[in-house]
């Protein structure tokens, strides 16, 4: 028998679910324990932010919100590996990555609270994409960004994130296909949280791993423990370096678990068992890193308490800023449609303005 092609997919893990090192030589960034403390703190603050978001939604102060509970290692790992000049194209729950890059909770709330101004990021890079609701489409926007960087010979990388369900979409396949064909600086991260609303991973694809989808596209592929931030960050650093130096794109599958509902409009108890969720909590990424840092003498209960108090203050400040945000004038619906309001829309705009004055 002659073999036309053969492949294998590396699985990467540095910390097991109890926070014990697996014995692999730690990457350089993980030896900088102060930096690892910073990453841990962001994972905790992301979780505090997430809980606050759900509380806001439950009390009628926010629209539908997609929780990131359980994804903190994957998301912070992605965001912290990128440079500011790189571009991030997310779907709608990658808050750990976005907060790292400068998106403010008040901006998250503004957008999911029904106001487009939340997408006008003030401190995050202007070339980072807005939240992208149509599943998978952001992958091609990232591929187009990567093509722009390549044409202009800029050492920049476009990163897109997508779920296990999203990796079934043609847009995902199209993006990795063109990235392979054109040697684009693209890193596509499948954050495999096992559930696409109610549809489990096994129904999405017969592919043994989701990472290996990139093999057919000619990309580097790796599967990592998505609850181990060191593994995610290391795979990202390697992928970004390859892409930046013109060696092509990567598909990373970060295996994690969606500990919460799909969104605040969902009830996951309808379609998945309690035991599965209970087991998944055993793999929770946050205590895992905490245990490791505690063993290194870098973290303790007092620090945890102090940091959580700081997070609460930060969130109070962000929530207040959000709640104090006044509505846009109704005419705003016309004002960002085109660079200038077309003459033919002036009458409609004036009508809206007059209705707005009356109300």
């Amino acid at each position, binding site marked *: 028998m002659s073999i036309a092609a053969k492949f294998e997919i590396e699985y990467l893990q540095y910390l097991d679910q109890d926070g014990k090192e697996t014995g692999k030589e730690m990457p350089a960034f993980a030896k900088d324990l102060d930096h690892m403390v910073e990453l841990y703190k962001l994972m905790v603050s992301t979780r505090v932010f997430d809980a606050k978001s759900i509380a806001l939604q439950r009390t009628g102060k926010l629209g539908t919100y997609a929780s990131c509970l359980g994804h903190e290692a994957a998301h912070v790992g992605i965001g912290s590996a990128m440079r500011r000049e790189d571009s991030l*194209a997310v779907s709608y729950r990658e808050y750990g990555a976005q907060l790292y890059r400068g998106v403010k909770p008040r901006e998250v709330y503004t957008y999911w609270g029904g106001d487009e101004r939340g997408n006008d990021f003030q401190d995050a890079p*202007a070339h980072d994409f807005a939240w992208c609701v149509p599943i998978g489409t952001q992958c091609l926007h990232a591929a187009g*960004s990567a093509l*722009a960087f390549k*044409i202009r010979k800029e050492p920049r990388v476009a990163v897109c994130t997508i779920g296990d369900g999203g990796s079934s979409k043609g847009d995902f396949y*199209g993006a990795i296909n*063109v990235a392979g064909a054109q040697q684009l600086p693209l890193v596509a991260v499948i954050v495999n949280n096992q559930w696409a609303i109610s549809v489990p991973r096994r129904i999405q694809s017969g592919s043994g791993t989701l990472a290996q989808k990139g093999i057919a596209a000619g990309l580097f592929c790796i599967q990592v423990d998505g609850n181990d931030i060191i593994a995610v960050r290391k795979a990202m650093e390697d992928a970004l370096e390859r892409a930046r130096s013109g060696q092509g794109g990567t598909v990373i599958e970060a295996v994690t678990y969606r500990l919460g509902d799909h969104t605040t409009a969902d009830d996951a108890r309808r379609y998945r068992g309690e035991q599965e969720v209970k087991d998944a909590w055993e793999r929770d990424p946050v205590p895992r890193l905490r245990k490791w840092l505690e063993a290194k003498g870098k973290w303790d209960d007092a620090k945890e308490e102090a940091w959580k108090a700081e997070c609460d203050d930060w969130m109070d400040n962000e929530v207040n800023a959000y709640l104090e945000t006044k509505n846009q004038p109704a005419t705003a619906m016309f004002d960002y449609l085109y*660079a200038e309001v077309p*003459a*033919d829309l002036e009458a409609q705009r004036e009508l809206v303005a007059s209705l707005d004055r009356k109300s």
Partner: protein
Amino acid sequence: MAQITLIEAVTQALAYEMRNDDSVVVLGEDVGVNGGVFRATQGLQEQFGEERVIDTPLDEGTIAGLTIGLAVQGMKPVAEAQFEGFIYPMMEHIACHAARMRNRTRGRMTVPAVWRAPWGGGIRAPEHHSEANEHLFTNIPGLRVVMPSSPARAYGLLLAAIRDPDPVIFFEPKRIYRQYKEEVPDDGEALPLDVCFVLRDGTDVTLVTWGAQVKECLEAADELAQQGISAEVIDVATLTPLDFDTIAESVTKTGRCVIVHEAPKTAGFGAEIAARLSEECLYSLLAPVERVTGFDTHIPLFRLEMKYLPSVERIVEAAQRTLAAS
């Protein structure tokens, strides 16, 4: 000065803008070494290289999504949909992202991109190569839908479309790609978007049309003139945002209007113009507004397609009916 066809005017505009703006890139299926299946991008890859004239994988969704990514990051991509019948896989990206990005981000991110697509019937092509589907785009806020009807307007409007800071769907009536030649100076002068062009002055009836039907309407106007009927002919050119003022001014003067388009009648863009006339010009109308359009059927395969497309005869008869009414 050389005389050129409409398709050569497209190539001339692309080459002009690529010479003068490094951020302009062309992408699509077969646009590179083959120069496009209609040769719209003929010679561009030789002049500007593979990095700026990009043969993409054969996936329309990929082309559309790449175009958005390129545009958001500061390029000015001109994407080709090989035929308007293949533009459907692009529509999610056009409607959900290109048309919304500026609004979604309050102006932080914009999509200064052009989607070119050979459009319409009458070239004896296979199924899916002869559609008139502009009305599917005119209902999408945030887009410009532009259709030239002559070599000079193809050149000037395409330059304007590329320079426009917002996304433009640029439909090229392929039936008249090589119908006639005219002098088109390669001077980089754009024509204005968002305006209708009055191609012929008249006093009795206004013929409103766009794209390939401009020729039939001008011929109909000639015939009507022989019958002593003076027809004004308007090329809408930019369908959205619509320059309704020019149409209203003309119809207020003539009191009669015949709208001509290739697309199916129901909810075609002619319906919008007729509705606007009834809202804003009713008391100037001397006769019911007429529509001469494709039928509410699929355009037939080519043995019957000319039975579907608006003919000079149908346009003349519609104009005569408006005259008979008052």
